[in-house]
């Protein structure tokens, strides 16, 4: 190899290394810390003292979405950065999708180097039959909850003048026309849609409910395009993704309204489903997306305790709270992120969802 080529290669390598170091120095926390022995399992004492057996190790955070711009990536990335600084590991989020992430939980060791951070679809996909029973919560370890997104909502073209789910119902009653809802099968949108459908059936009768139709599938971008093409009347997605299309100055074809959030969103003037009176089994329907850590079934108890202790510190960190609020996500209290409390909460939520799914109409019957 010629000298000049060698020099160019050396320079290029140096540049890549330099850029890497700049990035690590700012975002990677104490990434330069010496690696701890991977054989050392975590201990309660380590958790309490704030040290971590994962210090200096690489930790892979898998999420059940393949998007790097949705709420799953945003929350996982934020939590991973704070946990990396707190526990001293090098965390990286891999957006590998639900089936692949669940598979990782079955195949990886419970040493804490692989974590799944995802929302309720983790158990909803099993309940809806989208993935096998083998991936149920019983075959993994529920870790600390990490945050909540109450901001999933319905959206419609502004020209329809629908500002609430009641407006949609009234439109059906007045015109007798079908209204199509673009949702994802086996996801939280499916659940919110089912709750609305059952509520209309209960309050307005079967005939009105029969005009509520489902269009299934699609990413947020695809749902928006369906709305712009007027191929779907109502779509379901995140308020943070929809908000800009509600502002003044947006082209008429793109302009939309938001309504029926699954929970209260601070700083946004949008009615929630519960505010509108949507109920399920007599109780107001509230379904904020809960994000949680999941680990393999044989998870080391000591390392899990370290994660719990670190997450409690993170959730009380004002900077973390500020970052979460900027994205309209809710921060939880230290008590709520505790492993036992999280497990109890997630299992209870699964039971509620199970009851709702059992009563929900089959999408095959109401497909548009």
């Amino acid at each position, binding site marked *: 190899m010629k000298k000049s*080529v060698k020099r160019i290669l050396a320079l*290029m390598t140096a*540049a*890549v290394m330099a*850029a*890497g170091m*700049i*990035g690590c*120095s*700012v*975002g990677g926390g104490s990434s330069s810390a010496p690696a701890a022995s991977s054989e050392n399992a975590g201990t309660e004492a380590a958790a309490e003292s704030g040290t971590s057996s994962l210090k200096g190790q690489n930790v892979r955070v898998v999420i059940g979405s*393949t*998007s*790097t*711009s949705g709420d799953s*990536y*945003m929350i996982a*990335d934020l939590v991973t*950065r704070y946990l990396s600084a707190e526990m001293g590991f090098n965390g*990286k989020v*891999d957006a*590998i999708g639900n*089936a*692949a992430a669940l*598979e990782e939980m079955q195949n990886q060791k419970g040493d804490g180097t692989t974590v799944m951070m995802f929302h309720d679809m983790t158990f909803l*996909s099993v309940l*809806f*039959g*989208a993935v*096998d029973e083998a991936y149920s919560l019983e075959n993994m370890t529920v870790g600390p909850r990490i945050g909540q997104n109450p901001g999933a909502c319905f959206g419609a073209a502004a020209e329809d003048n629908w500002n609430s789910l009641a407006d949609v119902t009234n439109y059906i009653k007045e015109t007798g026309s079908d209204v199509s809802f673009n949702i*994802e*099968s086996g996801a939280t949108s499916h659940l919110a849609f089912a709750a609305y459908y059952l509520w209309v059936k209960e309050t307005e009768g079967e005939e009105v409910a029969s005009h509520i139709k489902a*269009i*299934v*599938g*699609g990413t947020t*971008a*695809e749902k*928006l*395009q*369906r709305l712009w*093409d007027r*191929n*779907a009347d109502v779509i379901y997605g995140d308020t*943070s*993704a929809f*908000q*800009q*299309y509600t*502002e003044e*100055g*947006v*082209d008429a*074809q*793109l302009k939309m309204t938001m309504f029926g959030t699954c929970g209260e969103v601070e700083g946004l003037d949008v009615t929630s489903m519960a505010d509108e009176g949507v109920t399920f089994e007599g109780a107001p329907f509230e379904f904020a997306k809960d994000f949680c850590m999941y680990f393999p079934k044989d998870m080391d108890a000591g390392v899990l305790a370290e994660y719990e202790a670190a997450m409690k510190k993170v959730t009380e960190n004002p900077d973390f709270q500020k970052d979460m609020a*900027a994205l309209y996500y809710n921060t939880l209290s230290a008590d709520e992120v505790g492993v036992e409390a999280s497990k109890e909460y997630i299992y209870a939520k699964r039971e509620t969802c199970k009851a709702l799914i059992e009563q929900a109409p089959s*999408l*095959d019957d109401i*497909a*548009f």
Partner: protein
Amino acid sequence: MITITKLLVAILGVVVGIVFGAIPGMTATMAVAVFLPLTYAYDLETALWLLLALYVGGISGGLIPAILINIPGTPSSITTTFDGYPMAKRGEGERALKTGIVSSFIGGMISLVALWLFTPILSSAALKFSSVEKFLIILFALTVIAALSKGQMLRGIFAGFLGVLVTLANSFSVNNQYRMVPAFLKSKMSDGFQLLPCLIGLFAIAQIFEEAEEGMNFKIQKTDSELEGDVKFSLSDFKGQGVNVIRSSLIGTFMGVLPGVGGSAASILAYAQAKNFSKHPELLGTGVPEGLIASESSNNGLTGGALIPLLSLGIPGDSTTAVLISAFMLQGIQVGPLFITQNPHTWNTILVALLAANIIMFLVMFFPIKLISKIIYIPRTRLYPVIIMICIVGAYATKNGRIFDVWALLIFGILGYIFGKIKIPASCFLIGFILGDDLENYFIQSISAANGSLTVFFTRPIGWVIWLLIIASVAYAIWDDRKDKKKKAAAK
């Protein structure tokens, strides 16, 4: 403002992007995704300079292996192999590479002008393209199969349909039910077979199998130092190609503007049109600059085009811009219909950064290309083990480290080898594989919006125009095929 830091990160981005693009299995999307966490260290402007440079470098780097070893570095450089590799085999590797680089540069610049001047118009036009028009455009791109399988059209069409069938072996998103997937593979195949293992299996591994069988007796017809002056690169290669380069760049740009229509479709469509409008269509595929120009100007035309829906509608134009959107979100900036008016400074930064990235790409690639082009002279017995290793790494990295994708690579390698034996064109299979997913998606979207009525495909004015193009393209391919057969029969 242009600063030394920004220029340095842009050079770094372009070089790393080219390396990613040139390694089979690594893509521009991966380059941007890998470097995304690094951008926390930078302000938004510097981050954009780096990410856009990675994007431009990643798209451009794919031409190097496509031309020199017949392996497309990225899915959008498949059509570059059709003429680039035959040129390299004739000893015209340097000429092919330089033609490709200049075409890439022109394509990039045309798309930049489109982004700069016509973003509002093009985004409005994109909104006129509903799922019906997108389905028809994909169908139009599929007609390239007819053109590519001249002399064996039945086999080509069979291969195309087979490709569509194989790409649909996955979990159907509408009802989450698996189709054509054995029970033991369900956890691996919710998204089906990945494109990159299929691409490099069919092109790289199958080719290595074939050459291994023949004893690795690959020879370059002439070394470039022995070539006559008229086959060395000069700008006269672009003489008479003005329409081709502009048409192909605009096809690339417009395909980028249409959200959800894959980048690979752009070069396929541009290549098909270059063949349809060529004075010597029979020469395309034998190693002529015309095909190379169409392919490379269109895939770089995509870069500016794909940014248009991202910055004006808030939805990404291709897989790389889907990752790029995260960079904005992580910096707290929402891209969408009000982005340009509310963030004029960032908008200008994007334009300047994209201009700089294209210029740097040209300088970094054009001048050292003489050295890079020597790869083709490395004995195959030494080169192929390295390529196999790179392919395995690339396949493994496709879904962040799954051994299943390495097996898929081997399966498609064997399939490609069998295709070669029974004379089924692997390129047609691949085109079906690439376009099949979008074809199904937009078909379902269209008919579900029309209550199951197929008439929806024949009731929209833009659709009529695309139908005419489809019919003309197929009719021409059939006529050309028959003419060729008659000529051969007469010669006998």
